[in-house]
C-alpha cells in the first residue's frame, strides 16, 4: 500500500478515531464527514470522537486459509465486534486460542502491527482486539504462584 494511503488514516487506525453525529447523536467508524442516515444536513455536524475501545463479539471465525500478509498468523480468529458506542468493526482477535472466541465475549482494543510493505518497506500499525474475560483468567492464574512464593 502506498505510504499516503495508509498515512491519511493514521489517527483512525492508531487511536480509533471515528465520528459523532450531533444531529442523530450516533457514532460512526471509520471517520465519516457525512452521516448516511442524516443526509446532507449532517455535513458540518460530524465531530471527531475517540472510541473507548471496548465492545463485544458479534460473530467470529477461525481462518485456516489466511489472507495475503497474514500467513504467519494462521489459523487466526477474525471477528465482527460491536463497540460499546454502537459501530461495528471487522478485526483480528489476538493473544488467545482462536477456537475459544464466541459471540457475546467482551473485547478491548490493543495497538498492534498490521503488516509491512516488504522487508525494507514501511510497517503498518493499527488496532486489533483481545478478549478481556480470557485475559483476566490468565492474569489471575499467573498471580497465584507469585503470592505463594
Amino acid at each position, binding site marked *: 500500500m502506498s505510504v499516503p494511503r495508509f498515512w491519511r488514516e493514521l489517527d483512525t487506525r492508531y487511536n480509533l478515531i471515528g465520528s459523532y453525529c450531533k444531529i442523530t447523536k450516533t457514532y460512526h467508524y471509520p471517520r465519516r464527514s457525512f452521516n448516511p442516515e442524516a443526509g446532507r444536513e449532517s455535513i458540518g455536524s460530524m465531530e471527531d470522537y475517540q472510541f473507548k475501545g471496548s465492545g463485544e463479539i458479534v*460473530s467470529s471465525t*477461525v481462518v485456516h486459509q489466511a489472507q495475503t500478509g497474514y500467513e504467519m498468523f494462521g489459523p487466526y480468529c477474525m471477528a465482527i465486534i460491536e463497540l460499546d458506542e454502537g459501530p461495528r*468493526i471487522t478485526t483480528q482477535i489476538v493473544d488467545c486460542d482462536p477456537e475459544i472466541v464466541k459471540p457475546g465475549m467482551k473485547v478491548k482494543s490493543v495497538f498492534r502491527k498490521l503488516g509491512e510493505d516488504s522487508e525494507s518497506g514501511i510497517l503498518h500499525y493499527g488496532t486489533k482486539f483481545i478478549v478481556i474475560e480470557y485475559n483476566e483468567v490468565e492474569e489471575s492464574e499467573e498471580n497465584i504462584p507469585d503470592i505463594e512464593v
Partner: protein
Amino acid sequence: MREVSIIGIGITKFGELWEKSLRQLGLETGLAAISDAGITSKDIDALYIGNMAAGSTLQQEHVSALMADYCGLASQNIPATRVEAASASGGLAVRQAYMAIAGGFIDIAVVGGAEKMTDVSDSESSYTVSMGSDEQWESKAGATFASLHAMIAQSHMTEYGTTREELSAVSEKNHFHASMNQMAQFPFQISAEAVSNSGMVSSPLRMLDCAPNSDGAAAIVLCATEKAKKYKKKSIKIIGSGQASDTLSLHHRKYLNQMPAIKMAARRAFKSCGKKASDLDLIEIHDNFTISEIIALEEIGVFKRGKAAQNILKGETRLGGKIPINTSGGLKARGHAPGATGIAQVVEVVQQLRGEAGERQVKNAKIGMVENHGGTAATAVVHILEGE
C-alpha cells in the same frame, strides 16, 4: 418501454483453462451466441462486457475495446462498454443491455462475460475475489472473502439453527446437477459426508462449501422482442429486471445473516412483471458459498426466513423437487468465473426454458429466475425470464 428477448446463447466449459486467453474465451462464446441467434456482426448495435478483475489478474484494463477488437467488431467502431460490480459484473452487464434496448436506444446487443482467474497464483486470485468487499476495512484487516461468509454462516446457524448437514446438502445437490452438465468445471457427484469432512477454510465453512475461482466465458444476444421473430423462431423474454445495492462492508449491516440487496432486487424484478416467488419453475442462485444459496432463497421469498436450509436438505430444490435450484451445478460445481458467472446463469435458464437442458431438464419449465450478486451482496441483480 419495449420488451426484450434473448435470441442467442454461448458458453465455454468453466475450469482451469490454461491454454486459453481472456480474448480467446470471449471470442469463442461471442461467436457461439451470434451463430445461435442467427445474426451477423452487422446486426449488432452494441457490446456489453462483464469483467471483474482483468486489471489485477492480467494487468489489462479496457476490456470492452479488447473484446470488440478480437470479436471482429472494431472495424464497425461498435459502442463497447465494460461493466464491473465484482461477481455481479455479468448480471449487471445484462441489465445495462436490457435497459438500452427497452429504452429504445438500440435493437440488438451482445452481452459477454469473461474472466481468467488461473493465470495468477491461488493466493492472488483469492485476494482478487476479496476486492469485492472493503479492501481497507475488511481485507487489509485480515478478513478473507471466505471468512466474511463464515461469519454470515455462523450468525445464520446461531439465529436459525442451520446445521452442518444442511450446508453440505447445498453442495451435494449442486454437484449432482453438475454431473449432468458437461460444461461444468466439476461434472461429478460428491457426497454430503465429503463436504462435511473437507478441509477447513474458515470455520464453519469448509473447502467444499466454497466455489472455485475459475476461468470461463459466456455470452447472450439480446434483441427487442418486436424484432426477435426476424432472427429466431423461439426466443426467451426477459420479463423482469431488478438491481439493488447495500453497504460495501458486511459489518455495517444491521443483520449479518440477511442480504437485503437480494431481497430488494428480487422485489423490483417481481414488481416489473407482476410475478411472485411461487410462479417460478427454477432459479439460478449465486452460491459462491453454500450459506449464500440458503440466504438468497430466503431473501427472494422461496422459503420463509430460517426455513430454506431444511427444505434444501429435504430435496425440495433438487431436480424433480418443488423448485430446482442451480440445475447448472451453480457456482460451486459449474464453476465461478466472476464476470462470466452472471451470464452463464442466464444461459442455463434459457436452455431450460427452451427445453434444451437434456438430462437435467426441469419439466414444463416456463418461468425462471437468475440471481447474481457481488461482494457480500453489496450489489445484487435479479432477472426473470419467460419461455414461449
